[in-house]
């Protein structure tokens, strides 16, 4: 027998810890699926809905038992967000959506492909984007891994993305071992290349240089947040909620990073040529 | 990956920008633009290291049947054979000269 990536022993508890402590006084709403946690409350007087995807060891989908974003998680997120959009449709101040992100990957499996996991994740992406466009401030807090399709579905559509300043926080398109196999390189080679190519790197500082993060949040413990850590994160969230003005519904502020010059140049030239 | 540059004697003639091919395995893209350099200024990016002599040969072979125009030529090569390289360069030259006169 060959051993395959089995996260069962290492399913991260970080998301759960941060969600539990941040939402301790809030109303927990039953999600459509057990891997989805939803809580409604307030941050600095602004109504908020917190959302978390966490491990469900009993999921009926065996390839989505360790915190992966799978079929149920994608559609379930969409349902929870869509519910908030409909509930607030007639109110001028719409509740914020706060995604606590600790997702190791999308679910890799036969059932997932057969039953259209791409469509499930599209449902979540669409719901987050529609919420943002409808004036719900959407904020992501990265407390652990934020990988690939899982992050696209849960977090990447946010107005503001914050990350704990901790080496356990990682954003990437593919885990290092798998990326090495796919690009026919060793992990050491990948690290050497990444030193000169920030978008390939696995460290948070390189990711921050791309300009996609609003800021890094210093904490005492990313694994077991202290009271001071929770206060700090609440302050950051409150600041973001004050900062997101009505009409600030796009993603263009992500284009300012030092290492996104080409993304800006392309848009600049496209605009020049568009009506030429 | 190697980057090479050849400056070859050329004659002034009317050409227009032209592009052929793509950077897929065993193929290459060849781009031609008018130039004021007074020569055929050929810039090559190739995935095949140590291939300068081979490129020189292909260029000389083309020069043996035609005079190159004054131009800037850019080549992005993904391990194409000399036969494919020659074909793509000739296609690009033909396209650059088409309707240009």
């Amino acid at each position, binding site marked *: 027998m060959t051993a395959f990536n089995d996260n069962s022993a290492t399913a991260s508890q970080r998301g759960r810890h941060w969600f539990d402590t941040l939402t301790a006084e809030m109303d927990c709403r039953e999600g459509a699926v057990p891997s989805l946690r939803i809580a409604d409350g307030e941050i600095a007087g602004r109504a908020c809905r917190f959302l978390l995807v966490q491990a469900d060891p009993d999921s009926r989908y065996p390839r989505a038992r360790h915190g992966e974003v799978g079929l149920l998680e994608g559609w379930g997120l969409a349902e929870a967000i869509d519910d908030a959009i409909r509930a607030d449709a007639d109110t001028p101040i719409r509740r914020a959506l706060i995604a606590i992100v600790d997702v190791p990957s999308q679910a890799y499996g036969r059932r997932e492909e057969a*039953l259209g996991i791409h469509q499930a994740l599209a449902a979540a992406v669409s719901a987050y984007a529609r919420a943002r466009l409808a004036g719900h401030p959407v904020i992501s807090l990265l407390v652990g891994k934020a990988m690939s399709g899982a992050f696209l579905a849960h977090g990447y559509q946010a107005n503001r993305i914050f990350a704990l300043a901790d080496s356990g926080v990682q954003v990437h398109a593919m885990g290092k071992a798998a990326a090495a196999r796919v690009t026919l390189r060793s992990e050491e080679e990948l690290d050497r290349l990444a030193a000169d190519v920030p978008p390939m790197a696995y460290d948070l500082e390189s990711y921050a240089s791309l300009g996609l993060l609003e800021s890094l949040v210093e904490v005492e413990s990313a694994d077991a947040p202290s009271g001071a850590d929770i206060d700090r994160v609440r302050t950051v969230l409150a600041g973001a909620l004050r900062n997101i003005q009505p009409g600030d519904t796009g993603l263009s502020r992500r284009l300012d990073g030092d290492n996104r010059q080409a993304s800006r140049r392309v848009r600049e030239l496209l605009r020049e040529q568009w009506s030429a | 990956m190697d980057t090479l540059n050849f400056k070859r004697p050329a004659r002034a003639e009317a050409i227009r920008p032209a592009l052929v091919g793509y950077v897929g395995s065993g193929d290459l893209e060849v781009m031609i633009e008018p130039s004021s350099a007074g020569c055929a200024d050929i810039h090559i990016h190739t995935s095949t290291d140590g291939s300068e002599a081979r490129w020189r040969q292909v260029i000389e072979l083309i020069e043996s049947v035609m005079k190159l125009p004054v131009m800037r030529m850019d080549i992005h090569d993904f391990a194409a054979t000399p036969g494919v390289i020659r074909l793509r360069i000739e296609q690009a030259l033909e396209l650059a000269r088409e309707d240009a006169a």
Partner: protein
Amino acid sequence: MTTRTQTGFIDLSARKRIAALLDEGSMRELLTPFDRLTSPWLERQGIVPQFDDGVVIARGTLDGTAVVVAAIEASFQGGSLGEVGGAKIAGALELALEENRRGNPTAAVLLLETGGVRLQEANLGLAAIAEIQSAIVELRQYQPVIGVITGPVGCFGGMSITAGLCSYLIMTREGRLGLNGPQVIEQEAGVAEYDSRDRALIWGLTGGAQRHTSGLVDAFVEDDVAVVHQSVTACLSLGVPAEHRSDAIATPLARLQQVDTREQIDAASALQILTQGAAK
């Protein structure tokens, strides 16, 4: 009896695909290869770039309707999206959105041949895909965004999620649509879960025929320029759908909550679940 010469769509390059779809003489390419906007990241990894970074953008008309078309070139780096190619698509959709806001209806057509994020530009490819997705959700409120997946590569990775956001999807038998590529699933989950060499299994689950009969795409067409053109035109004429596939949440969620996963799935049971719910 009439005879018609069939011209394959799959074999055409990205640029020629656009030319084949747009009304004669209407195609205007933006950011052409002569703008030399190559990837800033590939050369430092010893990889030869391409002048258009594998993405072609053009404005034009399709049966008189103003459209912007983005086509991914399957032959360059597996149709993968890096910073430049991703920004070309996102930027074009953003400008189409502005055009609609100014009162000039402009639809979008995406010719998707892509393995998803280009791993050599990993995080900037992923970021660009998030921006493409945001632009689609916004643009499709005004005008349809139509995705076309004909093969040879198919549509995978983050861009399969992008496909799931389109107003309409068109596929051929040769096209495939899935989140994870077969090799990656086999690596991650084992050969018993997904055998990447089992072509019948893979096409049976993710090929255009199955995706169409199970309702995950709207049109199933043959590999023929005229037929693809006709299908895109038909989708355009339908306008913005009353509800996008990505937003019809209740039914798929309920069906997927009832799946019996003690048995491994096959194409027939997947079809049953997706169209009628799990068998009682």
